[in-house]
């Protein structure tokens, strides 16, 4: 039997009252690390949903001082999508997917016996698509294929922000054509932590990338990381070494695989 909405949803509601202003909504979204709040009445009953996209309306329409003031006065209850779109917790995941696509929605309020108990979002469905690596022999088996990259003229403060927001411990610096020029890590940024970054750019502190090919064995990769005392290797395509990197292999990729239920590291001990 396939998974139900209950299996993937986030249980519990992150709410706000209808009378808070849009600036407060933005703060709450940031603090909670979510993209939407359930607008709930005094009885806790969901009235609607206000999302990051709704907040775009505030910026969109605040082009003049008068309009900005009007939008600053608007409340979550006035701008929310209402009534909230709901789905029963027992519904199949496929139905949630269909509902999201058909309604051009990003999330559904999950109900049990008519009572809101959680939220299922596109992110939850995407997470369900992720598959752990089934093999752990080569670099390609375990590397991260999605990269945080920037150009060499990126200001350091922007690089630091990107790393924080994306929860990445490094940024790969690439040329306009995508060729890897260097890597900036939290370690590299330590040297500027005592000063203001000013106008300095990543090109001033990046270190050359240590590369590896995707067909290399995991053992070779670990040898290279230990030899260079580095936490990550940039994976490049030997057929197109000047092209965009294929991915990054980091210590995190290694230990995540070690922690997987199929990993030899998790097998029962004799």
């Amino acid at each position: 039997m396939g998974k139900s909405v209950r299996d993937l949803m986030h249980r519990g509601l992150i709410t706000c009252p209808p009378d808070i202003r849009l600036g407060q909504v933005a703060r709450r979204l940031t603090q909670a690390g979510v993209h939407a709040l359930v607008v709930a009445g005094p009885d806790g009953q969901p009235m609607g949903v206000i999302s990051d996209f709704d907040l775009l309306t505030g910026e969109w329409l605040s082009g003049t001082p008068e309009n900005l003031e009007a939008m600053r006065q608007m409340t979550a209850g006035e701008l929310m999508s209402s009534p909230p779109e709901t789905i029963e917790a027992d519904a199949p995941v496929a139905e949630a997917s269909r509902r999201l696509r058909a309604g051009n929605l990003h999330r559904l309020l999950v109900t049990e016996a008519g009572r809101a108990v959680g939220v299922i979002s596109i992110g939850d469905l995407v997470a369900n698509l992720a598959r752990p690596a089934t093999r752990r022999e080569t670099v390609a088996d375990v590397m991260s294929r999605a990269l945080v990259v920037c150009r060499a003229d990126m200001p350091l403060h922007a690089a630091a922000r990107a790393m924080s927001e994306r929860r990445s411990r490094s940024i790969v610096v690439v040329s306009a054509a995508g060729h890897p020029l260097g890597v900036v890590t939290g370690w590299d940024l330590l040297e500027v932590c005592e000063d203001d970054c000013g106008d300095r750019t990543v090109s001033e502190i990046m270190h050359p990338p240590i590369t590896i090919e995707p067909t290399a064995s995991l053992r070779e990769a670990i040898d290279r990381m230990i030899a260079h005392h580095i936490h990550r290797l940039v994976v490049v395509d030997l057929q197109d070494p000047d092209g965009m990197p294929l991915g990054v292999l980091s210590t995190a990729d290694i230990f995540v695989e070690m922690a997987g239920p199929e990993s030899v590291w998790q097998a029962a001990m004799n």
Partner: protein
Amino acid sequence: MMSSSAIGMGDQGQEERQRFEAEVRRIVAASAAGGVTLRLLGSLAFHAHCPRYGYLQAALGRAYTDLDFGGYVRQAKEVGGILTGLGYREDREVFVVTEGGRAIFEHPGNGLHVDVFYEKLDFCHVIPWQGRLELDSPTLPLAELLLEKMQIVEINEKDVIDTIMLLLEHPLGGGDAETINLDRIAALCAGDWGLWRTATMNLGKVRTLANGYPQLSAQDKAQTAAQVEAALARIEVEPKALAWRLRARVGDRVKWYKDVDEVV
């Protein structure tokens, strides 16, 4: 609200009206001969497109004041050539200041004033006509004529009169041939909440104000109301864009139209 502006209202003798109408024919003929797409809008367009109900303009005190045309900016040079060939002088500063959106011509001999709008009408709201001018002649298509009036936030009596004439004269439908193309109107309103807000507000005003004209028969009033109802219903059912729905939630709290800065 309906503006109390008296521009475009007042007694105007038949001879004076015919002088305007003759000048329109002269410009339309010259542009056609020159291969230039120039379409009439404004009061004279409504008169030209309403042979049965055009008499209402004179009966209700609607006066001609100037000649307005719509065209394509790629033909701006040719338009200027045709009008200067007919004795007009262009105020080039207007074309420059409006970045090619509008041209104004004055005739030192007959005192007439010609406004040419390129690509769109851009007053309280934008009414584009790319690819639409070829659908009718010698005026803008009927849908754009109706929107020309319905986009005016502070609508004048003269605009209401023109609208009533148009609604009495032409059926509503999904095409442009002697028909007010509601698909076109609904699509533009569905993409722009501000235009929707103003147009639906004005359609309601037209329905109300039509009842106050003793010159209109009971049947004319009923027909105007029915046309307005049908137009509003069609606009209502058109699927709205996301931007429209977001803007609708904000509503009148934020100004939804541009103030009109008259060039002249």
